[in-house]
């Protein structure tokens, strides 16, 4: 009983982080209709920036500076890339994001170096035991993971609220739906793109911080984004709630599979289970759980 | 039933007097709620009184006199109800007219009562009145509620209610005592309102009611159902209809409950859900439409959900039938019922907007037994009542625990009722009309010297004391072989089928019965789409052989049903035709309350009916006049198939 609960909680905590990564994809896809291949590179770049800045200043300040840099980056991307690709085909945009990805990976390592760096957020490392009154032995939880999960969950909640309820969120959805009509009512496309890429930058930064503080900041961090792929396939590329539910399903699924199927199939299920799930979904329901239409641009 | 408690001190009451009382006794109680700009806005009784006062001063300043009539035309709006109260405060007589009537139909009542004032909702109504103004030289003032599209209209005598209110505020300051004086002058036996019956024949007649007659019936009804000031009512039927007046005006003022006005006619279903009325009235037609809509939707649902729905409804109907019959449902049903309630019935009631309903009534037409059983089954206290414009609604009411689909209830408190030798129902009560406006001949036809009112309805009193109506006395006739033929009985059975919207049966002095049918466009359209049956419009759909076969099945089932009773076995429908257009009030085929004008239809489609009786004919070419929404007329023609149906031998021999 206690073990099952621990597995479930671990799954949900991983799920929240996956949801965060997926949200980065969904935001950009909704606003500009392009699947952002650079999301992983952005995670790496943001984490590197954060890690190196942290050597010189307390982490909250480093965080703010790093976020500032991501906003500048978003502005540059809009100026130098997106603006010139208005009304171009989806493939052209996709290629552009691939280019951005390589550029960022190169730039990050060029500027910040290619060692393994640490991000230290000063979170408590020792685990804690909860609910010992209810369950014999209680539940053993990592406090670091718990705080990271709560932070990620908070960000997801804020972004959802922002998208659904705020006027800018509405404008972003409008842009996603129809560029021409959005322009005709005075929604400035370029500003919307800067905003949405900045938010994606923020998501990348938080993702990079959380994973970076656990695993260290290194090139493999950019592969974290690949975990977002099965999630968006599950949840649908156009749906914010889909990203959240998809993330939770993937997180839970792979932990449960690891624990209960692992002994039968051999370990390492965690690394491929999500893709199997996504493959199943692609066959049965290609638009995802909450998706609005068949994805035609990926 | 308990004796209705004697009317205490309130014999002197009039509607404005009741308003003053509520403003004093429950000042912050909500009198009206109206959804405006997406938000429900409340008017308390004190605010209502202020409003009425301003309007009364304004109308008085424009010269409204005691005893004169004021036309009120529009959807249900608190301000229009306030105008009615304001007019009554001054001793004038408000007369609500049907807002969907065309201009020429509006002209008759205005001319008859020499109206100088018309208070209307919006541009649409103003345009109608202006278009017939030349024929109404007396009509001086047209006052509108919604200024949209009218700001630049300079027609003489046209002004907004806002202006009238402002004028009223000004005059109130000059003579603050005038309003109370005017109200005090009003007497219960003054005329309170004039209603126009949508009569199935001839021009509408004005039915004169006094404060006393309306308040008497409103109180009688309120006593039977123990209505309180906490009821919520949704005012969504035409204010010109006396039922609406009783539920949203007379009883509103008698009980002091809240009347809620929908945002627009198209949002009634949404508003119903948001308000959740506790006291609800709908004609069978509305209940039927709700159920048809529901069935269409359930047909689209997934298999399991559909099964669960059917099982729950069957179970609930069975259990309710047991309860209504005074016995306990079987143990298994009692155990399963809470489950059905939680899974299907409660969500269903909620979806219909009827989850808070404590008392629901239907009247006006007979309700199909299946329909009645359904609503009672899902837990709505649906009952029937009997009454008319002339009787201020409450003549008979079913008590809680005495609801049945084939009867209309026990005589309400204060009603003396009997069946005359000719089989007609006659009654006496304090709620009867005073007279038909300027029509002593018509008055004499229905009110005899002893004060008995002749309803024109045929029926009898059942052993348990409930009244049963079979048809209009004039419509009941006999087949050529002398069998009793009550067309409504057959039509009602036909109309229960979701595919059939309207049915008119013929058989008087004929060898057998035939019928004209209207398909229900929504239901049959859905049915056709599911079968990938293409159609281009109403007429095309109505003529499809597949649709004719579908309706033939319905008719055959009705015939089986009729054959089960010896009294009706001979009136099975032998042939029918499906009309290529909907029967429509604009073409005078239905009344504004959507009752079939039988004689008119018989005349208009005489050729078609004759063809139905001619066995040699398989189809008939027909051409009819229609009036479009913009007032233009045109004609539509079609070749209609005459369809024969299966007839069953009588199951039981007459005892």
């Amino acid at each position, binding site marked *: 009983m206690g073990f099952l609960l621990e597995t479930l909680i671990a799954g949900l905590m991983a799920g929240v982080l996956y949801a965060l990564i997926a949200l980065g994809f969904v935001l950009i896809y909704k606003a500009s209709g392009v699947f952002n291949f650079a999301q992983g590179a952005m995670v790496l770049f943001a984490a590197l920036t954060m890690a190196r800045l942290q050597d010189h200043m307390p982490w909250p300040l480093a965080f703010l500076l790093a976020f500032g840099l991501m906003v500048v980056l978003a502005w540059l991307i809009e100026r130098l890339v997106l603006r010139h690709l208005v009304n171009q085909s989806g493939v052209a945009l996709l290629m552009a994001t691939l280019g951005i990805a390589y550029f960022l990976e190169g730039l990050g390592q060029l500027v910040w170096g290619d060692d393994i760096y640490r991000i230290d957020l000063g979170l408590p490392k020792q685990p804690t035991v909860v609910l010992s009154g209810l369950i014999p032995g209680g539940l053993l939880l990592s406090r670091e993971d718990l705080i990271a999960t709560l932070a990620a969950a908070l960000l997801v909640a*804020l972004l959802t*609220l*922002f998208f659904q*309820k*705020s*006027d*800018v*969120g*509405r*404008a972003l*959805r*409008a842009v996603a*739906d*129809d560029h*021409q*009509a*959005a*322009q*005709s*009512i*005075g*929604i*400035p*496309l370029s500003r919307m793109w800067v*905003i949405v890429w900045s938010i994606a930058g923020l998501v990348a930064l938080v993702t990079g911080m959380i994973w970076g503080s656990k695993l260290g900041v290194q090139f493999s961090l950019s592969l974290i984004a690949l975990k977002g792929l099965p999630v968006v396939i599950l949840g649908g590329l*156009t749906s914010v709630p889909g990203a959240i539910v998809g993330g939770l399903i993937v997180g839970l699924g792979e932990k449960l599979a690891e624990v209960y199927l692992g002994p039968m199939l051999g370990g390492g299920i965690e690394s491929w289970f999500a893709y199997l799930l996504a493959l199943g979904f692609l066959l049965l329901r290609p638009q995802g759980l909450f998706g*609005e239409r068949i994805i035609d641009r990926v | 039933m308990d004796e209705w408690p004697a009317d205490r001190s309130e014999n002197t009451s009039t509607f404005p007097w009741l308003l003053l009382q509520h403003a004093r006794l429950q000042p912050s109680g909500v009198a009206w709620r109206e*959804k*405006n*700009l*997406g*938000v429900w806005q409340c008017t308390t009784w004190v605010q209502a009184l202020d409003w009425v006062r301003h309007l009364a001063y304004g109308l008085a300043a424009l010269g409204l006199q005691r005893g004169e009539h004021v036309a009120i035309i529009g959807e249900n709006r608190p301000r229009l109800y306030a105008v009615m109260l304001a007019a009554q405060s001054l001793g004038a007589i408000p007369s609500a007219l049907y807002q969907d009537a065309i201009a020429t139909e509006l002209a008759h009542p205005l001319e008859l009562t020499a109206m100088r004032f018309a208070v209307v909702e919006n541009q649409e109504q103003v*345009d109608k009145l202006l278009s017939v103004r030349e024929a109404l030289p007396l009509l001086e003032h047209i006052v509108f509620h919604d200024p*949209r*599209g009218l*700001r*630049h209209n300079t027609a003489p005598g046209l002004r907004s209610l806002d202006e009238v209110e402002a004028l009223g505020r000004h005059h109130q300051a000059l003579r603050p005592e005038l309003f109370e004086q005017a109200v005090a002058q009003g007497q219960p036996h003054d005329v309170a309102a004039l209603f126009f019956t949508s009569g199935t024949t001839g021009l509408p007649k004005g039915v004169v009611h006094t404060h006393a007659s309306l308040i008497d019936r409103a109180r009688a009804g309120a006593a039977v159902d123990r209505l309180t000031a906490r009821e919520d009512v949704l005012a969504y039927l035409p204010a010109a209809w006396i039922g609406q007046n009783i539920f949203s005006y007379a009883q509103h003022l008698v009980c002091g409950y809240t009347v809620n006005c929908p*945002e*627009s006619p*198209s*949002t009634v279903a*949404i508003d119903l859900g948001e308000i959740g009325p506790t006291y609800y009235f709908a004609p069978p037609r509305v209940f039927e439409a709700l159920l048809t809509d529901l069935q269409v939707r359930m047909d689209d649902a997934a298999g399991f959900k559909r099964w669960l729905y059917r099982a729950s409804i069957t179970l609930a109907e069975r259990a309710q039938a047991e309860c209504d019959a005074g016995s306990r449902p079987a143990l298994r049903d009692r155990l399963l019922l809470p489950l059905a309630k939680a899974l299907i019935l409660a969500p269903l009631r909620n979806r219909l907007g009827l989850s808070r309903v404590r008392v629901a009534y239907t009247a006006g037409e007979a309700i199909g037994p299946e329909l009645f059983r359904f609503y009672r089954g899902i837990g709505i206290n649906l009952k029937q009542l009997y009454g008319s414009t002339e009787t201020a609604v409450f003549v008979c009411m079913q008590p809680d625990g005495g609801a049945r689909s084939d009867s209309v209830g026990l005589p309400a408190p204060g009603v003396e009722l009997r069946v005359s030798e000719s089989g007609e129902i006659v009654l006496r009560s304090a709620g009867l009309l005073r007279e038909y406006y300027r029509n002593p001949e018509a008055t004499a036809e229905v009110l005899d010297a002893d004060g008995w009112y002749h309803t024109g309805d045929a029926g009898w009193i059942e052993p348990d004391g409930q009244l049963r109506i079979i048809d209009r006395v004039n419509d009941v006739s006999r087949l050529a072989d002398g069998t009793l033929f009550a067309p409504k009985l057959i039509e009602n059975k036909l109309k229960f089928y979701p595919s059939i919207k309207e049915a008119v049966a013929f058989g008087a002095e004929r060898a057998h019965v035939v019928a004209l049918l209207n398909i229900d466009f929504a239901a049959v359209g859905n049915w056709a789409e599911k079968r990938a049956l293409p159609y281009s419009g109403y007429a095309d759909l109505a003529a499809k052989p597949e649709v004719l076969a579908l309706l033939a099945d319905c008719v055959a089932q009705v015939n089986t049903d009729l054959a089960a009773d010896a009294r009706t076995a001979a009136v099975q429908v032998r042939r029918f035709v499906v009309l290529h257009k909907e029967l429509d009030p604009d073409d005078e085929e239905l009344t504004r309350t959507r009752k079939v004008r039988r004689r008119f239809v018989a005349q208009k489609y005489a050729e078609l009916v004759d063809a139905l009786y001619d066995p040699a004919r398989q189809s008939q070419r027909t051409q009819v006049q229609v009036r479009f*929404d*913009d*007032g*233009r007329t045109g004609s539509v023609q079609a070749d209609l198939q005459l369809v024969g149906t299966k007839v069953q031998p009588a199951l039981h021999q007459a005892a």
Partner: protein
Amino acid sequence: MNHTMRLSDATGPFHAKTAEPQAIAAEPCDDVLLELLDIHLGFGGIKALQGVGFDVRRGEIRAIIGPNGAGKSSLLNVVGGVYQPQRGSVRFDGRNPARMHPALAARWGIARTFQNLALFSGMSVLDNIMAGRSLHMRCGLLAQALRLGPALREEIAQREVVEHLIDFLEIQAWRKQPAGSLPYGLQKRVDLGRALAMQPKLLLLDEPMAGMNQEEKEDMCRFILDVREEFGTTLVLIEHDMGVVMDLSDRVVVLDYGRLIADGTPDAVRADPEVVRAYLGSDAA
């Protein structure tokens, strides 16, 4: 394509309402809101507009008619800043932009509806029209994200404007429904509502009645007349159904193959021999 051009059929059900311009005459009628001078526009070798020029007065309903391919939509797109003319100038509200573009047009108070529906189909009717208020929203990003007081108050104020429009267009029953799920005629109304939410000085309607049945057309005509009366908006509308236009508009511009062939009151235009020729020509085609 065969057009339903009925030169004789000008007396529709709307005639009663065309008496209204007298009321508008109280405003300065000689005041020109929009002036186009010698507009030339071409795409590759195709000359879409060749030296078109006319003006639109404040408060008037101005129609642009012409057979398909006459350049009507191109002209609208020039005014809205979607296309840049190769020659000629657009003067709006006393100002001459160096280069008109859609964002500028929106800021100056030019709104438009679309011939082919361009609603935000996944968003509710309410959100579609609220989006039309974008230019009028003032609160910062953070305040909105956190739903702070001023942002909430602003939202409520904007919502009130939008609710008035929902009431005006009689679409209360569909507020919460996704715009894409509505029937065509209703979507057209939502499109109009979204444009009106900008509170524009000039409203461009690109074939507002295309694809509608008679009843929907009549509704739309009523809304167009009411827009002018209620909001004082100046309207420019494109139609190729001449009957509708003649009843609705104060002055009519007729285009044919990118050239302006007539400009004047409906009666004058109807009588113009070149217009008759252009239309009969296209009918015969």
